C-alpha cells in the first residue's frame, strides 16, 4: 500500500516538475525564490572589478554571464530541486548562487547534475566551473582537482531502527549489514572502522531509509545532518552516538587554477566574516539542527586544500 502511495506521489511530483519547468520558461529562471533565498542573495557581496583579473577563469565566467556548477538535484538540505518551483534549494545550492553573484553580479547558476564518478572529469575538461556537491577534500582527489575551502565540515553518523540494541559506535558494525548511500564517503569510512561489516548501497537517501525500515540492514551510515532530518520526519528511526568522522567539504576547481582558487578562498573568508555563511547555514541545514550556526572551518586547514 505504501509503495502504491509512493508511486502516486512520484507521479504527482513529476507532473508538478514538468509544469514548473514549462512555467518558468517565459520568466527569468535565474532569479531565486523571492520568499526564501531572495533576501539572502540580495545581501551577498559582489567582487570589486579589480579582483576579476583579465584572462582569468573569473573573467570568462563573468563574460558568459552564468556560473556552471556541478552539483546534485536530490540532496535534501544541501542541493535539492523543489518540484513545485523548479528552484534548487539547500546549503550547497545557496553557496553556488552567492558565488555566482560575487563573480557576475547576479545569482545566475546553471547546475550540471554531476556524480562522484564524473566530477573530476567534468572539472578537468572544463564542462563545469566549480563543483559544489559534498565534495570531501582528500589528498588523492587533490591530485586530480584543486579544492577551495573547506567551506563546511560534516561528519558521518549512525541511524538504526528504534529499539535496536548493541549498535552505538562504528566498531559495533562488524559482522552486521550496513546501509549506505552509493558514492558517499560512508563506504570507505565503514570499511576502515568496521572491516567485517557487509555494506549494501542504494542510490538515494529515501531508498536507504526505506531499506533500513524494511530490515535490509542493521544500521544506516550517512551524514549526520541528513540523518537528523530523517529521524525528525520518521519516528521509527533514531540516530545513535555522535559523528565519528570529520568530512571537510571543498569547492572543486580545475586542477592547477591557483588564481581562481585564491579568488574563491578570498570570497569564502569574506562571507564567513560578514555573516552570510552563517545565515545560509541557518536557512538550510539550520532548519533541522538545533542551536546556532557552527564555526565555519578554517580555509586551507586540511591536507589537499
Amino acid at each position, binding site marked *: 500500500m*505504501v509503495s502504491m502511495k509512493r508511486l502516486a506521489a512520484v507521479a504527482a511530483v513529476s507532473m508538478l516538475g514538468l509544469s514548473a519547468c514549462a512555467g518558468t520558461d517565459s520568466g527569468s529562471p535565474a532569479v531565486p525564490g523571492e520568499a526564501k533565498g531572495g533576501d539572502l542573495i540580495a545581501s551577498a557581496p559582489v567582487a570589486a572589478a579589480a579582483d576579476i583579473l583579465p584572462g582569468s577563469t573569473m573573467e570568462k565566467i563573468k563574460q558568459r554571464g552564468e556560473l556552471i556548477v556541478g552539483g546534485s538535484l536530490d540532496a535534501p538540505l544541501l542541493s535539492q530541486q523543489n518540484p513545485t518551483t523548479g528552484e534548487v534549494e539547500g546549503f550547497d545550492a545557496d553557496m553556488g548562487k552567492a558565488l555566482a553573484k560575487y563573480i557576475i553580479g547576479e545569482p545566475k547558476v546553471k547546475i550540471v547534475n554531476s556524480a562522484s*564518478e564524473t566530477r573530476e572529469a567534468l572539472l578537468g575538461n572544463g564542462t563545469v566551473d566549480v563543483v559544489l556537491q559534498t565534495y570531501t577534500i*582528500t589528498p588523492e582527489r587533490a591530485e586530480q582537482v584543486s579544492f577551495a575551502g573547506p567551506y563546511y565540515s560534516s561528519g558521518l553518523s549512525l541511524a538504526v531502527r528504534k529499539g535496536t540494541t548493541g549498535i552505538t559506535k562504528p566498531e559495533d558494525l562488524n559482522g552486521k549489514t550496513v546501509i549506505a548511500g552509493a558514492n558517499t564517503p560512508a*563506504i570507505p569510512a565503514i570499511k576502515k572502522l568496521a572491516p567485517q561489516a557487509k*555494506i549494501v548501497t542504494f542510490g538515494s537517501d529515501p531508498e536507504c531509509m526505506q531499506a533500513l525500515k524494511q530490515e535490509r540492514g542493521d544500521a544506516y551510515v550517512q551524514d549526520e545532518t541528513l540523518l537528523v532530518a530523517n529521524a525528525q520526519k520518521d519516528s521509527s528511526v533514531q540516530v545513535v552516538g555522535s559523528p565519528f568522522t570529520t568530512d571537510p567539504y571543498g569547492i572543486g576547481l580545475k586542477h592547477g587554477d591557483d588564481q581562481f582558487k585564491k579568488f574563491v578562498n578570498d570570497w569564502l573568508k569574506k562571507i564567513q566574516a560578514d555573516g552570510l555563511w552563517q545565515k545560509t547555514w541557518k536557512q538550510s541545514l539550520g532548519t533541522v539542527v538545533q542551536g546556532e550556526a557552527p564555526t565555519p572551518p578554517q580555509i586551507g586547514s586540511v591536507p589537499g586544500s
Partner: protein
Amino acid sequence: MSALLDHLPEFWQGLVVTLQLTVASFAGAAVVGLVITAMRVSPVGVLRGIGTAYVETFQNLPLLVLLVLAVFGLPEIGLKADLLVTAMIVIALYEAAYIAEALRSGVNAVSAGQGEAARALGLTFGQSLRHVVLPQALRTVIQPVGNIFIALTMNTSLAAAVGVVDLTAAANRVNLMEAQPIPIFVGAGLAYALIAACAGFVTGRLERRLVVVR
C-alpha cells in the same frame, strides 16, 4: 593504472557477482521463455492470451522500474528475499519475455508442413513441439539468443542501483576512494566486453555446428 591493480580483489568479487547474476538469470530466463513460447504457439486460446500478456508486460516496463518495485515494494506486502536473489529473479522474468519472442520467431521459421507432418504421424501437440518444432526452432535462434545473453550481461549492472555489489558497484566504490574514473571504468568496461566476447564466440561456434541445412 595502479588504481585498478591495487583493487583487483574488489573487482574480482564484483565480477563473480556479475557472473552469478548473469548465469542464474539467463538459466531462469531460458526456462520461463521456453514455457511462454510453448504457450504462445499452443492451440489453447487462454494460454496464448497469457503468453502474449506476459511478453507485453515485461517488454514494456523498464528493468530498473521492475527492480526498484521488487526490492522496495514487495517487502511492503511481506515478500522479502535476499537482494541478489531478488535481482536474479527480476532479471530472469524480464529477459524471459525477450527470449520468448526470439524463440517464437524460431518456431515461425519452421515450415508449417513440418507441424502438419508431425500431426499426420499421430504426435500430440507436446510431442510435435518437443521432437519436431523446437529442435529446429532452437537451432535457428542461436544468434538472437546469444545477443539476448549479451544484453542480459549488460543489464545486470542495473542491479548495482538496488544494492547488489556487482562489477559496476565495485568499480563505483573503488572510484570513490581513488578518484580515477577513467582507468577504473575502462577496466570494468573491459571485463564486461570480455564476457560479451566469450558469449559471441560460443554462439558463433554453436551456430556453425548446429545449423539446420535447408
